[in-house]
């Protein structure tokens, strides 16, 4: 088992390596760049530009630049010494150097000058709150509708669930969000149209003032957060529940037709128990893997929803950075999400191997 996990971990390294090259190449091909902000400025002399390029290593050949960005090369090294860190260890080791994405150094935002890691670190919890709430709710709903649909297969309820699933699945997320805003915010004035907190009387989320406010008025703070969550979460749930619901329904239908279910029924086990204990437990197997593959959604899936509801999370940061040509943020977010996607695939594989005794991981 340990061997299997280690082998899968090592197998992920080349994938991530190619991904990092792709990310670097994509943004190298894009127009603009670190120097673009000086292009129109007559006060920045050619010498100053030269010094800027030298300071940030832009005068180096592209492979060296990539190697430094990755954190394998030491910017202070010469010749083959670039691979050796300042303290004599190979630079890519965690204690060898301190530059590059391998050491958690994603550079600085071109627009705000803040470290990318800080910006992403601030955004992740917000996206987790939105996407996490939505994920939990739609999984609950998917289990409910999936199991009912399978048990009452081709009945009226099943047909209704199927139609709802198909329609929900066909909504463009951003348009559904827009329509919810039109109805519930613009026309009925029931819920806020966007944002994560009421800027008039609630401080910035997760700031010191915010926690002080939560300490004083915990209920008001929670109500404010929930009011802002309702519309975006509804959007995500309606669009996303279908795939899981259909998946669980198919897995349940499959497991309800197995011999052990017939045996349980023949033994006189109550139907409710047959469904929950015998059929559902076995149907969980493929479902768990599927959920594992959905985990990256927690970080990236809400991009359209975040944009529509101006939820200040990762997706929103990505859109703003794209509009502003802010490469370090784009690269940082892409690298982090790629690591999360590969990690989630790995996790799904490993969990599947643990849960399913039939899998041999030789």
């Amino acid at each position, binding site marked *: 088992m340990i061997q299997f996990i280690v082998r899968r971990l090592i197998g992920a390294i080349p994938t991530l390596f190619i991904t990092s090259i792709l990310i670097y190449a994509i943004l190298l091909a894009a127009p603009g760049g670190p120097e673009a902000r000086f292009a129109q400025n007559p006060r920045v002399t050619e010498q100053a530009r030269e010094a800027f390029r030298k300071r940030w290593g832009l005068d180096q050949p592209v492979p060296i630049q990539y190697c430094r960005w990755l954190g394998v090369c030491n910017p202070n090294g010469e010749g083959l010494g670039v691979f050796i860190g300042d303290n004599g260890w190979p630079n890519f080791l965690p204690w060898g150097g301190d530059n590059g994405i391998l050491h958690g150094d994603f550079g600085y935002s071109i627009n705000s000058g803040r470290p990318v890691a800080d910006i992403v670190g601030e955004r992740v919890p917000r996206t987790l709150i939105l996407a996490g709430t939505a994920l939990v709710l739609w999984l609950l709903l998917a289990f409910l509708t999936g199991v009912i649909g399978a048990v009452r297969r081709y009945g009226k309820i099943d047909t209704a669930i199927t139609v709802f699933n198909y329609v929900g699945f*066909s909504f*463009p*997320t*951003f*348009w559904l969000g827009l*329509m919810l805003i039109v109805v519930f915010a613009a026309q009925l004035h029931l819920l806020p149209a966007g944002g994560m907190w009421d800027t008039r009387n609630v401080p910035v989320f997760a700031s010191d003032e915010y926690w002080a406010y939560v300490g004083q008025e915990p209920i008001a703070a929670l109500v404010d957060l929930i009011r802002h969550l309702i519309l975006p979460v509804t959007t995500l749930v309606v669009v996303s529940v279908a795939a899981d619901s259909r998946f669980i329904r198919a897995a349940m239908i499959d497991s309800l037709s197995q011999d052990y279910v017939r045996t349980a029924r023949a033994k006189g086990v109550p139907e409710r128990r047959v469904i929950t204990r015998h059929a559902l437990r076995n149907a969980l197997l493929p479902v768990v893997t599927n959920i594992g593959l959905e985990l990256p959604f927690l970080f990236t899936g809400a991009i359209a929803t975040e944009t529509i509801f101006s939820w200040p999370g990762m997706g929103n940061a990505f859109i703003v950075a794209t*509009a502003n040509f802010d490469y370090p943020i784009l690269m940082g977010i892409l690298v982090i*999400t790629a690591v999360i*996607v590969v990690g989630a695939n790995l996790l799904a594989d490993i969990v599947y191997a643990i849960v399913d005794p039939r899998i041999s991981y030789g």
Partner: protein
Amino acid sequence: MADTVKAHQLATPAEIEELNPEIVGADYDVQLESLSQWQLAWRRFKRHRMAVIGSTLFLTMVAIAIFGPILVPYDFYKAPPPDEIVYAGRPPSIARPFGETGGLQRDVFALVINGVRWSMLIGVLATVISSVIGTIVGGVAGYFGGFLDTVLMRIVDALLALPLLFVILVFTKFLGAGNWFTVMIIFALFGWLGIARLVRSVMLSLREEDYVDAARAAGVSSARIIFRHLLPNSLSPIIVAATLGVAGVIIGEAFVSFLGFGVDIQTPTLGNTLNGALTFISVGNWWWAFFPGMAIVIIVLGINFMGDGLRDALDPRARI
């Protein structure tokens, strides 16, 4: 008139007579009919209620995309005289069933009709190109295996580790330059990954089949085995995936254009129409955003129903 019994490749009349002498001279004819794979699939498809509804929806939208703009032309340069302009536009009426936009007072109906054409064009073209790329890459990887397979699949894995919508956003913003053709190509270049994986897995199982061994033993060339034996047999999953892929591209393009990163506003795709509507929602102009969005929903719903029907119909193990 005698009843007609249709049997599929069951037996010749002589054989039936021999098996069951009692039906000789019975009051009905036995009509024999052998059906090809595609005829069988068509029969299964016709019985699939949702598939029929879905393809009706989809074909209606295709008809609108082809003929609509001829009947309801849309002129970007036609502006109303200034004294007729109402800032928030006019709600749906009998003369203008989908209402008029705010600002330049455009007919939303004409915008939707023309938007359907552009969105469909981009969706279908991008999917056709990406299906071809995916089939070639997946076919080569699956058929030849070995080192080539490892390299190609590593690249696919690496690309799939990226959130593709993010990458497409970066590309359309930085390289798209607002040209619908470039945007379409960008969607095509990132849409082939799923199909490549699918074709590869189908190829891996098909190349172990006896008829492939037989062909190889007979000295048939690799190219002929791939194009005559393997591809026709792996066509069904490709068709299903490509059908559903059109829906993905249409939604993706709408989102990218809606953000203002996609096709330039001189091309009235559905996403661009929605982008324009954003400013006017706060003044109560809901019809501008509602109808283009509904057009997307109807196209996508039709495609999803149709894709599911095709999946069932093209499954050779399914019985009619």
